[in-house]
């Protein structure tokens, strides 16, 4: 194995940077595209907040535009940014390096994956330029409304959205097969599953979820396209639209919701599990301490992954489905809180008796634990079916899911970029700018979302263009909305610091060396930084220990790399 590396080193600019089959280049392509669309979605959220905070002050935001902003913001953030960045970006970059492989097992398919992803993004963004604009159906795209008059973009926009999703799923499947197969088949000698860094575990499990969950979205997208274009009635019962009877008959709108959330709930964990894994490694590395309860952490990831397939209908307690489902889904939903809580305990217990270096990645990791705790705890309100009756479809839900799958995973994304940027470029990101970015983002998002829960408790419904003349909403709620909008725009501007830092550090950042954080996992043990094509020099590394040998008693240095062949220091059982 070690000697048969015929690497086919890419020769031209085109094969090296454009039609590249190198997982590291593909990872960066994925990341750049994802961050680019992410910024579009960020701008859309700013426009939404302008309307909500200062209603009527901006003439170009009419109800149609507002709902289009809401829809595109949500869909881009969940699918085209977070899913693509965690799996296509971090998954691609880290899996082969962390398991000691030279590349993904199917490099050509891997390359196709990123180009399909780009195509999906282009189709999605094209919907801004078609007659009627993009769909304004909300990111959940519920029929019948998504394909009927009265909803913006119900002619062209929705079609492009569904086609784009289908293409994205093709891309995600090609990538996903690669990640799973690479983890199962291409680990280096000695890299047992129970020695893998939790980052790999998180991404691995998330990819399995993606491979099983995305097909449900795929079929619902295809069926809705048929309903729209061919007049079938998968999701369309006999109904009126704008007073006219339609030809549809016999379909079920709730069927779509089941299919959507059968995908949609695992999707939450497709985003969360990689974040769980990555943050575990950030905390352990920067606290100079082994992750607490590694085996429990692995099993928690696996259990959460399995349970995430039997909780979907907690998004549908008030959907009009059979109310007896509520008992089952409330129970499974609250059970999933147990392994999740254990993960939180283990993160904070990793800090305990550590030697905590408050580097920028560590700050983001702590920010994650704090915001994720809020998001997780508010989930216990919504998951407990009877409390969902008043809170569902209010701002409490908006605040909850932004904390749990918006803010907290994004904090991990930032932490991870600050952490691995040196490996990707050979340079450190600027520390001062990193701290400014952290404090602005962390405190800013708290100021946005913490008070927002209280609007929901008051009963303010979500997806409202304006709240004029509702007696139960006091005027003070408008002031609160204005404050939230100001903070949202502030947080958005803070991201410019991050962008500037990314570019500035590429040229002017301090040289990092191979292992600036003195970390143990294999990606830091490459011969070159950034690693060259094929990752390792002549010999691929051999793994001798788990990824968390920090501060092992009896050793001078406080970390033992996974390929360090010394005294055995394993989890003692």
């Amino acid at each position, binding site marked *: 194995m070690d000697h048969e590396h015929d690497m086919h080193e890419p020769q031209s600019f085109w094969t090296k940077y454009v039609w590249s089959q190198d997982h590291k280049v593909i990872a960066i392509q994925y990341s750049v595209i994802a961050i680019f669309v992410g910024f579009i979605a960020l701008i859309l959220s700013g426009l939404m907040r302008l309307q909500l905070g200062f209603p009527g002050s901006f003439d170009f935001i009419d109800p149609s535009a507002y709902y289009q902003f809401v829809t595109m913001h949500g869909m881009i953030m969940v699918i085209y940014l977070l899913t693509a960045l965690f799996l296509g970006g971090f998954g691609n970059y880290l899996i082969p390096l962390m398991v000691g492989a030279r590349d993904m097992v199917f490099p050509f398919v891997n390359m196709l994956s990123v180009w399909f992803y780009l195509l999906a993004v282009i189709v999605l963004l094209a919907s801004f330029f078609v007659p009627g604009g993009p769909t304004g159906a909300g990111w959940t795209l519920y029929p019948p409304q998504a394909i009927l008059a009265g909803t913006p973009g119900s002619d062209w926009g929705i079609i492009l959205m569904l086609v784009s999703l289908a293409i994205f799923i093709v891309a995600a499947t090609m990538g996903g097969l690669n990640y799973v197969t690479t983890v199962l088949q291409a680990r280096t000698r000695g890299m047992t599953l129970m020695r893998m860094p939790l980052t790999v575990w998180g991404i691995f499990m998330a990819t399995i979820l993606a491979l099983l969950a995305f097909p449900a979205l795929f079929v619902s997208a295809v069926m809705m396209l048929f309903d729209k274009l061919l007049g079938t009635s998968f999701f369309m019962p006999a109904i009126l639209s704008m007073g006219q009877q339609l030809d549809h008959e016999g*379909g079920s709108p709730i069927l779509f919701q089941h299919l959507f959330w059968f995908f949609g709930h695992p999707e939450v964990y497709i985003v969360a599990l990689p974040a769980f894994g990555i943050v575990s490694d950030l905390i352990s590395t920067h606290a100079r301490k082994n992750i607490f309860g590694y085996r429990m952490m692995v099993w928690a990831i696996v259990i959460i992954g399995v349970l995430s397939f039997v909780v979907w209908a907690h998004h549908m307690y008030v959907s*009009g489905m059979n109310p007896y489902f509520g008992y089952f889904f409330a129970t499974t939903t609250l059970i999933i809180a147990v392994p999740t809580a254990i993960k939180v305990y283990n993160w904070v217990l990793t800090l305990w008796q550590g030697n905590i270096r408050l580097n920028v990645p560590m700050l983001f990791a702590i920010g994650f634990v704090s915001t994720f705790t809020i998001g997780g705890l508010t989930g216990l309100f919504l998951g407990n079916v009877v409390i969902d009756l008043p809170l569902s479809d209010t701002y409490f839900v908006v605040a909850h899911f932004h904390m749990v799958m918006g803010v907290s995973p994004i904090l991990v994304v930032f932490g991870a970029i600050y952490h691995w940027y040196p490996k990707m470029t050979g340079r450190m990101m600027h520390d001062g700018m990193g701290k400014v970015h952290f404090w602005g983002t962390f405190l800013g998002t708290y100021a946005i979302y913490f008070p927002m829960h209280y*609007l929901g408790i008051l009963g303010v419904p979500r997806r409202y263009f304006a709240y004029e003349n509702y007696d139960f909403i006091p005027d003070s709620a408008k002031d609160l909305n204005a404050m939230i909008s100001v903070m949202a725009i502030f947080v958005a501007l803070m991201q410019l610091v991050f962008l500037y830092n990314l570019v500035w550090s590429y040229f002017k950042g301090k040289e990092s060396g191979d292992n600036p954080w003195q970390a143990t996992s294999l990606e830091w043990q490459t011969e070159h930084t950034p690693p060259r094509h094929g990752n390792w020099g002549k010999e691929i590394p051999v793994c001798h220990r788990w990824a968390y040998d920090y501060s092992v008693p009896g050793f001078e240095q406080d970390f033992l790399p996974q390929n360090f062949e010394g005294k055995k220091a394993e989890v003692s059982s």
Partner: protein
Amino acid sequence: MAIAIALILIVIGSVIFHFWSPWTMTELASNWGTIDDTMLITLIITGIVFIAVNFFIAFAVLKFRHKEGRQARYEPENKKLEVWLTVATSVGIIAMLAPGLVVYADFVEVPDEAMEVEVVGQQWSWSFRFPGEDGKLGKTAVEHISIDNPFGLDPLDENGLDDRLVQGNHLYLPLNKPVKVLLRSKDVLHDFYVPQFRVKMDMVPGTVSYLWFEPTLIGQFEILCAEFCGIGHFNMRGKVDVVSAQDFDTWLSEQTTFSASLRKNQSEALSVLAQNGKEVAQAKGCLACHNFMDSSIGPTWQGLYGKTQEMVDGSQVEVDDAYLTEAILQPGTKVVKGFAPIMPQIVLTELEVNAVIAYIKEKGGVSGQVSGSASLSGAELAQSKGCLACHSVDGTNLLGPSWQGLYGKARTLASGETITVDEAYLAESIYQPNAKIVEGFPAVMPPPSASQEEVSAIIDYIKTL
């Protein structure tokens, strides 16, 4: 260091915010205080965990931050601690879930003595139906929905004849009587939501969902739609008045029954042939250009039969069966002066032609007499037909142009053309809502479910604003 202080301040700030916040639950107006109690239990348990986790991190950072010479402790696992934490978490979860499921069981099982009321949603208004003296609601189906039967009640179902029909977004409920709300939608998803009652539920076309509650507070509350239903979603307003049982009974007895509304429509009843003609005219699209109001794209059918019309070539023709048959089957040959020869050739059987002619004759009449009586004022109609969901009367532009000062005003259309708002334009805009859209407004207005007299009444009302 700073992060530890920040976390401590966040916790203190959050707790202060919680108690100081003016944004708390609305005053409870139903029996669902138990839901509020369940929420309080969850709040206390999760609040403790929130404070504990953040304080623990802050303390750990303060105590164990990096120092020269500090060595972290090497402790991969601590089984005892892990088991203890798992058990404690499970206990906390059960403490939240168990009372939640008990209360939920109350919600799912509707008390036997509950009265039924149906709430019907459509873009973007509400209507309501109560069972009559038989206590049973009649069957409904989308195929029965028409101008004369907006609820889509099955006319052959006897249970429905005494149902009380309430249009106009305003519901009354009696105090202290459990009510089972049956939820139905004519078009897309909606959600019946009154914050003070706590419970909400989606309304799904093709199926009937339900919820129940018992109003416990006299007063007026707002009905909101809580499931996104298109661009008018935020403005789908209704009102519910909780009143004494006596007031409720009085109010209910004033509401029209289905059979009364059928009788009213029968006063302008059509023969079977004309009834068929109406269906043909709808199905073949005649009514897109012809109506019983002012002429639009084609000549009006109101009072058409028997009239003498001037043709494009200057000749005079009396409108009779022969002329109408020719005009329908060979549209281009004799075009009335002032109209473009754009009517497409439509394939109709002889019987269908006769039916349409009968419809024109009976509905439009020879003398153009007005049948039926508009019992509601324009203002009431504007409310009950849902016009006011999108058109304000105070000058604010919602989804549609405000009606204040609209009449007589010059408006620019989306096409760039400028028109003056007169009766003809208003009538056309109501019958063919999306033909001439005022610039800056979306083309989303549904065609009317209003009779000719009702439309005239609404136009008269607009003139007064």
